[in-house]
């Protein structure tokens, strides 16, 4: 019973107090950072430094007219935003954002794991659920009955399934190092040295693939404005339109958290700082969660940074990179890792 209440609290805090507010802040951050990079100001009037801008935008989305065009496949058109939002919210569940804390609540000894669900197949769960996101894009693009949407949906589905292979291959090399599919075990395995130093090639493959999976520049072909108007969400309006972006930003958060967990030691604090200063257990946990958050925030900034720095790929370049470079490199990385483990 206590476990169930704890799980509910964790879900409530993570989804409604961390991820959704973070999405709003990210949208603001994107506009401010892009303004900074392009040497202009960006939105800074609503609230302190424009902090209330995303709230204003969200309210506006809610009160805009919800047009359902006459030519769409009504049922599919209506459920597509839901289909894309659902897996996006679900993926974060297995990412560990801290170690565990054993404490008394009332008179019972409880172990609080800082993770919504501690699955023993965590990595597989992420690969499985994340790939469900393709359905939302395809159904959205198909049901709109618009040429731009159709093309955007086709492109995005081909892109996402192409880059899922390198993503899986890069994860395999990490799993070989830890010998476990549990993300908590993968973090503990990196106590001595982070995976980014043991798996530099795997890290690069994973990074590129996760950019392609989240449809971010330089791989945002599905929504290339200049060619496709808006891509798969051209015919959507109001909050349905916003759902696609909500899902994209949630996916970005999950991708950053995953890069941190798999390659940058998750909640592990580097250089043995925690062991050196000897804090009470509770503070140790808080610092570890802070370390995880900082690393994740850095990668979120990195996503935005890359978006406003690199130009967009052409579609044939994208497919060539995926199939001709990333897949063989991923296979090579597995063989190299196997040899490395056998020799050392």
């Amino acid at each position: 019973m206590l476990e169930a209440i704890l799980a509910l609290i964790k879900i409530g805090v993570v989804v409604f107090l961390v991820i959704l507010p973070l999405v709003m802040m990210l949208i603001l951050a994107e506009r401010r950072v892009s303004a900074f990079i392009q040497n202009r100001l960006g939105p800074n009037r609503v609230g302190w430094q424009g902090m209330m801008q995303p709230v204003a935008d969200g309210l506006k989305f809610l009160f805009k007219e919800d047009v359902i065009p006459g030519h769409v496949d009504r049922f599919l058109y209506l459920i597509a935003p839901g289909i894309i939002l659902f897996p996006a919210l679900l993926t974060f569940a297995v990412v560990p954002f801290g170690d565990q804390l054993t404490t008394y609540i009332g008179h019972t000894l409880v172990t609080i794991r800082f993770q919504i669900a501690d699955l023993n197949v965590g990595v597989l769960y992420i690969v499985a659920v994340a790939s469900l996101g393709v359905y939302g894009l395809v159904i959205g693009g198909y049901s709109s009955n618009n040429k731009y949407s159709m093309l955007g949906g086709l492109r995005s589905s081909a892109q996402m399934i192409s880059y899922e292979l390198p993503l899986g291959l890069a994860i395999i090399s990490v799993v070989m190092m830890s010998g476990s599919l549990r993300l908590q075990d993968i973090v503990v395995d990196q106590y001595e040295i982070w995976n980014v130093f043991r798996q530099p090639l795997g890290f690069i493959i994973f990074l590129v693939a996760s950019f392609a999976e989240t449809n971010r520049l330089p791989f945002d072909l599905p929504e290339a404005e200049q060619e496709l108007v808006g891509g798969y969400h051209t015919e959507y309006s109001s909050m349905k339109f916003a759902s696609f972006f909500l899902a994209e930003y949630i996916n970005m958060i999950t991708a950053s958290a995953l890069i941190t967990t798999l390659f940058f030691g998750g909640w592990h604090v580097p250089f043995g700082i925690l062991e050196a200063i000897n804090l009470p257990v509770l503070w140790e946990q808080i610092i570890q969660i802070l370390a995880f958050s900082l690393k994740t925030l850095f990668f979120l900034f990195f996503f935005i940074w890359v978006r406003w720095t690199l130009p967009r790929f052409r579609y044939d370049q994208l497919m060539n990179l995926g199939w001709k470079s990333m897949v063989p490199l991923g296979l090579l990385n597995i063989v190299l890792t196997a040899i490395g483990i056998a020799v050392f």
Partner: protein
Amino acid sequence: MLLQYIPILVLSVIALGFAAAVLILTHVISPKVKDPVKLTVYESGLPPQMEARLRYPIRFFVVAMMFILFDVEVIFIYPWAVVYQQFLAYGSFIFWEMLLFIAVLFAGYLYLYKRGAFKWE
């Protein structure tokens, strides 16, 4: 062991509820102004030509098939990756085994490459 999935179940109910709530809320409170022009297909301001769901390039179909082929092979590697370090203690058979598997996979990859399956003009 299935108990560990209960938080996932709870989360999926919440996620479904959230998605439904957002979409229904906007449907209920948004203003409705009827206008026949608003309901037509968007095509950069021109009158729409033809249906949108025309025939599309076979390339996309080939990509989907290649994905299914390779993704299944990748899933086969996962269990091997988990037990690799443990089994290495009993000799190097596990290494050569997977090297052969990857070699066969790579031969298939080279065949597709030669047949021009990855060519995207």
